[in-house]
């Protein structure tokens, strides 16, 4: 290990810099948090901004956000030198630390916004399922109903109002959640690659982009698996919003890049060299060309020329997949890129990813699969397509 670490260094690095501090797990942390924030913003499009066309994805977006939010702290936890001490961050937080305060933003968002909103939205179904199920399922739904079984019209109207209010405060909370992740990096003055006030806003917009792309992809894939019809008005609308958000995100990142190039301060030569060598694949190819310009172009295509439904579905599948890869590359470039050059600006190193170690590629892949397993569980527990419950109420089941 000793030789490979030292041989990776080109030029001069401070001796303590040779060992990289933050691994691929820390790349996942802003990525997953961003997916949460973006998915929630999409859900609020329908609820707050009354974009009726995206309604079929409303509940799916909320459940997706929850599935990923539950996984979000895991990479951090696994990375700690002393994971058993992590609760200290809540018990004795250091108020000037962005990381400590993030814990509270996270809890607020998880408990006060997301879980409560999902509960209110599903309360009727939960009560109905508790009534008709038997055995452990009955017990489960009874527990989930928190002992409240009033589903009268007045009661549901109150749910609706409170839910509306929650979504309204949920939007700034989602902004806060991910803007704050950007602040964790952007506030480190020691690191010129991170230290910019643009960081929270760039993180926020890339979060919105990745979250919308994820929900769109999940919606299309799950519809295909379930054999339900894809609502083309819905996916067209989401794809349009994705394109708008992506253009803003891409522009913001472009401004940041241009600004750095034009100012060319003392760190510029170092960073410029890095982008042309060690980060060339992940930054120029994956983030900017194949994960940025290409998906924007693909999403813009149906706006410019007539494209058949089938072709549009293919375009969206490709564009959302590329978007998710591009945003993951962006997180990589921030987190890993920020550690590949010396704070002396006199040298560089290379990050070699381990495979089956605590912070290796394998746990990272598992952590990316886990939210989808949780989502499948959530979809079974709380079907977003209002099926069984409504059939019993004498309504037609609504397609996803």
């Amino acid at each position: 290990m000793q030789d490979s670490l030292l041989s990776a260094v080109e030029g001069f690095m401070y001796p303590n810099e040779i060992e990289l501090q933050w691994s691929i797990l820390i790349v996942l942390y802003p990525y997953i948090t961003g997916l949460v924030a973006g998915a929630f913003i999409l859900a609020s499009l329908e609820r707050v901004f009354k974009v009726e066309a995206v309604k079929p994805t409303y509940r799916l977006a909320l459940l997706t956000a929850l599935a990923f939010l539950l996984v979000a702290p895991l990479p951090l936890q696994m990375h700690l030198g002393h994971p058993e001490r992590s609760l200290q961050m809540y018990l004795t937080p250091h108020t000037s630390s962005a990381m400590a305060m993030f814990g509270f933003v996270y809890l607020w968002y998880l408990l006060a916004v997301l879980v409560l909103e999902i509960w209110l939205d599903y309360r009727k179904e939960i009560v109905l399922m508790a009534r008709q199920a038997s055995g452990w399922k009955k017990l489960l739904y009874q527990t989930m109903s928190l002992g409240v079984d009033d589903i009268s019209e007045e009661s549901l109207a109150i749910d609706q109002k409170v839910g509306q209010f929650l979504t309204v405060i949920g939007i700034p909370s989602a902004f806060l959640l991910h803007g704050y992740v950007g602040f964790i990096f952007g506030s480190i003055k020691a690191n010129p690659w991170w230290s910019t006030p643009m960081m929270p806003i760039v993180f926020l917009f890339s979060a919105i982009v990745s979250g919308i792309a994820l929900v769109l992809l999940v919606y299309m894939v799950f519809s295909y698996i379930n054999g339900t019809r894809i609502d083309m008005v819905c996916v067209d609308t989401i794809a349009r919003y994705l394109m708008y958000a992506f253009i803003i995100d891409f522009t913001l990142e472009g401004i940041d890049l241009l600004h750095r190039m034009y100012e060319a301060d003392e760190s510029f030569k170092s960073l410029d060299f890095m982008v042309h060598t060690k980060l060339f694949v992940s930054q120029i190819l994956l983030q900017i060309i194949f994960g940025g310009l290409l998906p924007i172009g693909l999403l813009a295509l149906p706006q410019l020329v007539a494209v058949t439904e089938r072709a549009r579905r293919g375009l969206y599948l490709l564009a959302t997949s590329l978007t998710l890869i591009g945003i993951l590359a962006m997180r990589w470039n921030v987190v890993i890129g920020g550690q590949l050059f010396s704070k002396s600006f006199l040298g560089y190193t290379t990050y070699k990813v381990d495979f089956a170690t605590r912070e290796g590629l394998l746990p990272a892949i598992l952590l990316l699969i886990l939210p989808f397993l949780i989502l499948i569980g959530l979809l079974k527990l709380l079907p977003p397509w209002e099926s069984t419950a409504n059939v019993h109420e004498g309504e037609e089941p609504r397609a996803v």
Partner: protein
Amino acid sequence: MTTRREFVGKSSTFLVLSAAAAAALDNVLEGTPEKAPGYKKADHWWAMIIDIEKCIGCGNCVRACKTENGVSMEPYYFRTWVERYHVPAGNPEHPQVDSPNGGYDGFPEKYKPGDGSKNFFVPKLCNHCAHSPCVQVCPVGATFESPDGVVLVDKSYCLGCRYCVQACPYGCRYIDPKTHVVDKCSFCYHRITKGLTTACCETCPTEARQIGDLKNPADPIHEFLRTHKINVLKPQMATGSKAYYNGLDGSVR
């Protein structure tokens, strides 16, 4: 032949003694003000002066520090290290820098005298900043500025999240591979609170580095600061660094 009884007896003694030795070592490594009676934190404000013109790059300080503080021997864990600067003629802003094993083994000859270049050594250590970016970011307050101006780490409280390592502009922190918590120069707190000097200052043959108490009017540090052109590393970081350098070339990063 050793009987079972003897074996148990001997190994118990060995275990007891090891534990005692470990406890003693802990005391040696982690001196606290409580163990230094009469020491009042409010009466001191520690700083270090480093005279680049006197440093000969012998590496005594690095070796003494590793020994005194039990620093891991791998070449990327240092509480203090020495850098060698080679500034070629006509290119004052682009130095070539190296620090083989942090200067622990001294510096093998590399540059020929008389080539028109400028060569010097820069010892580095925690700057014990008065406005420490590392202290600011610690999520649990495990690293803190002591009232006597020393930045310390509570190792029983550190999570090992490495945020402070990222926040230090000078590369002074590392994660101890043995304890999985952060480690850094403590100005040999266990020594200075007992009236001793630091291990690095103690062993420096040219007095290129000296610890000083800015609250003690009789300390020679005042005279040194007054009579020399003093600078700190990366002054634009505004961290309130208390490692004061004499003869700090503009090319030093």
